[in-house]
């Protein structure tokens, strides 16, 4: 199965990734695009910077893609942007291709969740009022993907 993960400077070029995982034996191709939102916790976001611990992020990202490719029998790849982004810009791209759509949907969902949880990347937001903040991951959502509230 195909394994690919990288940390890349904004703007991302995802054409090579799409071509790398698309395959004639794969009838289902699901991809997810994480884009910069123009609001966070009620504040207007005007700019956003991502930074990554690249050496570890690329190792861990490759492990995630390998694990999930194997688990679902899909071809998968992902890339996360670093640098200065604006609302609407592409921050992370995840793709999974499989013979049938069920595996592709499941793998795509698990990939983005695992990347958010396990890959050392940090987000720095700038707001309309000129203030800035580093964002810490949210532990309080308690959704099916993150049931670990106290």
């Amino acid at each position, binding site marked *: 199965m195909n394994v690919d993960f990288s940390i890349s400077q904004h703007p991302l070029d995802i054409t090579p990734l799409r071509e790398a995982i698309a395959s004639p034996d794969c009838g289902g191709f699901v991809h997810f695009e994480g884009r910069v939102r123009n609001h966070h916790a009620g504040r207007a976001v005007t700019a956003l910077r991502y*930074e990554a611990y690249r050496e570890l992020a690329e190792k861990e990202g490759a492990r995630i893609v390998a694990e999930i490719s194997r688990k679902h029998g899909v071809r998968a790849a992902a890339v996360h942007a670093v640098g200065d982004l604006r609302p609407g810009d592409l921050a992370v791209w995840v793709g999974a291709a499989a013979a049938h759509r069920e595996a592709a949907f499941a793998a795509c969902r698990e990939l983005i969740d695992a990347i958010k949880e396990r890959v050392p990347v940090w987000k720095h937001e700038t707001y309309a009022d000129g203030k800035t903040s580093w964002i810490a991951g949210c532990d309080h959502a308690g959704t099916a993907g993150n049931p670990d509230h*106290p």
Partner: protein
Amino acid sequence: MKPPLRGLLLAGGRSTRMGRDKASMILRGNGQTQAANALRLLEGSCAGVFLSLREGQEKPEGCGSVEILRDAVSCGGPLAGILTAMRHDPEAAWLVLACDLPFVDAEVVSLLLAGRDDAPFTAFASAVDGLPEPLCAVYGPAALPILEEHAARGHVCPRHIMAEEGARLLQLPAAARHALENINTPRDLEMMTRFGDPGAAPPEPAGKTPGREVRLGWFGFLAEQRGRREEMLVTPAGTVGELFAELAAREGTGGLTSGVRFAVNDEFASPDHPLKAGDKVVFMPPFSGG
């Protein structure tokens, strides 16, 4: 007239990262479970204390005969427990406390209660990002319609709801800056049991321990706080966990908390990972990619 104050202990989490029920763990030196200590704390200031559990969940050890409220809202997470309680007594203000905050004590609770007014939310500001800490907070009666409205729209993170709606924000005094650190993973627990309470003075190095020089790397807000991305440091610490405790205690780097993960030579490392001269050590704040 001030509404009556009820206490709610949130113990309905699945503790998936810990792998066992956090409420039943004994974290403090008095031999009581975390749930028992937290209930006693709430009983000290509230007229009526309730224990929030999931449907079908067993009562954690040490809870005595406290009244149980089972999640009657399907949104999941702590919000389900909070909404269930507020619907149970909508006229009351609720002091909400999570069961995995072993450093919250009577002093912290009295600071919180002294700071509250009739605002829907009263909470401490996070030492990390300044946002409200929702799981040691007071939810006034006015919070109920706000929470209902967010839940109906699928917003289930109380921290984000509070930030968006505006909370009365209190600052923790410097001496209690670690009070709201929670325990999520066996590693957090190990850090706590090995190094005692966060913020406690570090053990004195024994005699003239030869130091080893390591390279520290910093990212995110930790890099901002340090004012640098890399530095060399001579330390007597034998493991990455000891180095972490030494830095956190000696330098008071506010962001060096239990949520920080470690890497040595570009690989994830546990606290007992031995340090060698020349190692590259990185302390990573909680990730926020995606």
